């Protein structure tokens, strides 16, 4: 537990991914395998079922610290993290221990779940009395299920690969299912993660390896320059730019793997796509985008997010949020690597394969025709109504490259500009994590009447917390503290003095918002220090942006 707490501190303290990688490897090399097994489980995102009701934990901690509820709450608001708050408030430890992570998890933490309610308080107190302050932080993070330390599953995968001397993609496959709910990883499970590659594991038939993703580059030039820079449209394959999850579907030896960009296996998150993959012939690899799809149209990314966020996918959720794979490339077919073929030949083979398979969850991403760039630009203006981010321009002779290369062909992403209005900051709330105790989460309003209307008021319509630099945020924080009108728990209402240009990707009517308007992905584009509050935009401006 001490070594794991020290690892947590090292990972938490550093912003450098190199330093994090070094700390991970150092820990894995030194830790007993049974402890490393659990460390990997937690670092890779594994969470046991809730061990103790959070309410009880708060109550016991407050009691042990001898504080009234309001002061515990004030402390929590200042810290911004429950586990950390409790670790800071408890009286110093009275005993010591030298148990490893595995012993703590198996003998102490996991048995808390389902322990008789009347025995729980004393058990918890006995446990935390033995733990040093930095161990307590980790202990409470494990109990509250909020164990996040700025390490991605990919980084853990890379560390395991380095320690075991195994290919990282191989480790990623071995990690499949490692963190499932109810998993009890032991020394043998850890050993299997870092073991040398066995011959049959390496054999192509059983391999679910994806190809490195070919990535697009932004294209933000004036339409007048298109002909000069790109030549005629005939040389390009034009598609919509989907707002979903980029993925490769791999089918080999009767098995299906779904990989997201970043080479994370997401097969288990999309069981219906895994089932669809069964219909594909063996030794095929498709590239495309996972989107929520209803009545033949793509749904907002927010819908997809609702699925990604879930630990368990019940039948209700699968029914409400149906997904498809919008396929746009075929990179392996009949066991042959097609990446060296030109774009339009790959596309032709893809279309033939999709016709042959004919599965409702495997949809070809349509190719857009247009008479010249100006025509395409006009069509692109409908992107927002279609729920897409713009267009993709792929050279017809482009090979499928590796990452962001341009040497064998190029893919451009031609995105539409975000919508924007000038809005007034009316409420502020303290952030979490790195921004704890800083007022970093804001609610924005627009006027419900035109300038000169003495009765008009500010109507809140969006929340945003990104887009400012640290320095700007510190200045905004200072203004908020100075102009606070009222505090309601963690939220402050402020005298309207701050105007921001707020950007968003989409806008729709909403009955759930007081303003009658909901915007998608709002973020601060810039702080309009030059603009007086009276000149901020109005509800009428927002309504004019609504799709017909």
């Amino acid at each position, binding site marked *: 537990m001490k070594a794991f707490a020290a690892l947590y501190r090292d990972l*938490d303290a550093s912003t450098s991914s190199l330093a994090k990688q070094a700390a991970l490897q150092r820990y894995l090399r030194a830790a007993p395998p049974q402890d490393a097994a659990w460390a990997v489980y937690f670092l890779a995102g594994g969470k046991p079922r809730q061990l103790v009701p959070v309410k009880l934990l708060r109550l016991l901690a407050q009691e042990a610290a001898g504080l009234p509820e309001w002061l515990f709450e004030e402390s929590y608001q200042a810290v911004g993290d429950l586990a950390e708050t409790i670790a*800071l408030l408890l009286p110093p430890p009275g005993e010591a221990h030298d148990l490893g992570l595995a012993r703590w998890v198996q003998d102490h933490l996991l048995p808390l779940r389902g322990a008789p309610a009347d025995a729980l308080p004393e058990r918890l107190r006995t446990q935390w009395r033995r733990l040093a302050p930095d161990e307590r932080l980790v202990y409470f993070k494990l109990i509250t299920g909020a164990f996040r330390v700025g390490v991605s599953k990919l980084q853990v995968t890379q560390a395991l690969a380095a320690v075991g001397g195994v290919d990282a993609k191989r480790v990623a496959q071995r990690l499949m299912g490692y963190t499932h709910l109810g998993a009890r990883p032991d020394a043998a499970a850890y050993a299997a993660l870092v073991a040398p590659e066995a011959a049959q594991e390496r054999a192509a038939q059983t391999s679910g390896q994806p190809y490195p993703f070919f990535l697009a580059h932004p294209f933000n030039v004036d339409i007048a320059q298109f002909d000069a820079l790109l030549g005629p449209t005939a040389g390009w394959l034009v598609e919509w730019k989907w707002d979903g999850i980029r993925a490769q579907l791999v089918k080999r030896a009767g098995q299906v793997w779904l990989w997201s960009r970043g080479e994370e296996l997401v097969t288990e998150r999309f069981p219906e796509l895994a089932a669809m993959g069964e219909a594909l012939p063996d030794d095929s690899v498709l590239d495309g985008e996972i989107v929520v799809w209803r009545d033949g149209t793509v749904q907002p990314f927010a819908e997809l997010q609702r699925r990604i966020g879930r630990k368990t996918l019940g039948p209700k959720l699968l029914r409400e949020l149906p997904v498809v794979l919008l396929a746009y490339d075929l990179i392996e077919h009949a066991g042959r690597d097609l990446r060296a073929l030109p774009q339009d030949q790959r596309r032709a083979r893809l279309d033939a394969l999709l016709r042959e398979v004919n599965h409702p969850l495997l949809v070809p991403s349509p190719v857009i025709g247009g008479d010249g760039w100006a025509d395409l630009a006009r069509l692109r203006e409908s992107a927002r109504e279609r729920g897409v981010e713009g267009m993709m321009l792929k050279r017809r002779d482009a090979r499928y490259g590796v990452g962001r290369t341009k040497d064998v062909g190029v893919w451009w992403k031609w995105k539409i500009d975000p919508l924007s209005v000038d809005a007034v900051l009316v409420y502020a709330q303290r952030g979490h994590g*790195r921004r704890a105790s800083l007022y970093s989460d804001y609610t924005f309003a627009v006027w419900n009447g035109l300038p000169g209307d003495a009765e008009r008021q500010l109507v809140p319509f969006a929340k945003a917390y990104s887009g400012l630099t640290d320095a700007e945020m510190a200045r905004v924080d200072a203004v908020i503290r100075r102009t606070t009108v009222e505090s309601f728990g963690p939220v402050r209402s402020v005298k309207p003095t701050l105007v921001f240009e707020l950007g968003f990707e989409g806008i729709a009517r909403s009955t759930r918002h007081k303003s009658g308007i909901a915007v998608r992905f709002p973020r601060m584009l810039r702080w309009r220090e030059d603009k007086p509050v009276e000149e901020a935009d109005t509800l009428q401006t927002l309504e004019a942006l609504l799709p017909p």
Partner: protein
Amino acid sequence: MASPDLPGPGAGDLVVARSEGLYCPPGDFYIDPWKPVERAVITHGHSDHARRGHAHYLAHTDSAGVLRARLGADITLQTLAYGDTIEHHGVRLSLHPAGHVLGSAQVRLQHAGRVWVASGDYKTEPDGTCAPFEPVPCDTFITESTFGLPIYRWPTQPQLFAEIDAWWRRNAEEGRASVLFCYAFGKAQRILHGVDASIGPIVAHGAVLPLNAVYRAAGVALPPTLRVTDPGVDAALLKRALVLAPPSAQGTPWLRRFGPYADAFASGWMQLRGTRRRRGVDRGFVMSDHADWPGLQQAIAATGASRVFVTHGSVAVMVRWLRERGLQAQGFATEYGDEDEPAATAQGEGAAA
């Protein structure tokens, strides 16, 4: 005790809040005023307490050096030793150790049978670089509350220095300079006084040097420090060095000479992961010149005061907490910042020193 049990606020108070600062009506002087006044009693030399432009200054003897260096050699300054008393318009005034920085003082005021104490900023744990805090019995205590939340509990001095030493030692072994950002007045000298100087050479930023001289002149033992421009200070030496620099040096070209260095920040705010990460340094050492939550409670209780004014920091929290404990507590609006202020509102000592 001459004062009634529940005196109404304002009437007959020895200290009231005015727009210029905390004011003593019978004595006609201010304590740490933030606007220019005729007579100012200065609790200590940090820039939010000791400001320019007053006609007369009164401060502790050990503050004289810092005040003259910062406010001008020509200020009209009267000094007092701890415990000495002077009388002004019938108000008996004396200064008592606050344990915050060299020369820091609590101001005791006695008039018509009442005793008030204004704490300025204070720290209850002795650190060896200034006279330790002494509780002064009074009817009314004016306290700071910079770290007025129970999440703030400081490690002991030995724990703190064991951590700093271990960090420096490991960096030195791995051939990396250890850049420790700390405020030039107070923190830097505490670090110098407390670290194990046998680990390696110590380099001080130019902003720290004049304050080291002031401390040494007051008889505080500090290990020798080098300047980056001193002869013999080369790349090999810097790899083993502890470098003390004000926070304003963070991100400046001055640091380039140290090559790939490890950096850390010493402040009470480093207690929280959020502020630590926002600082963007490798390590945060929890080191403050202010009392932690238990320190504030002990200090307030030790005065025996039944009435408490809370000046800066977590004012609302402290007032509510004290009221629930049966004390008559209220807030005083002041313009004191905090040299540790996390929200980047106060430029603080780095710029002033």
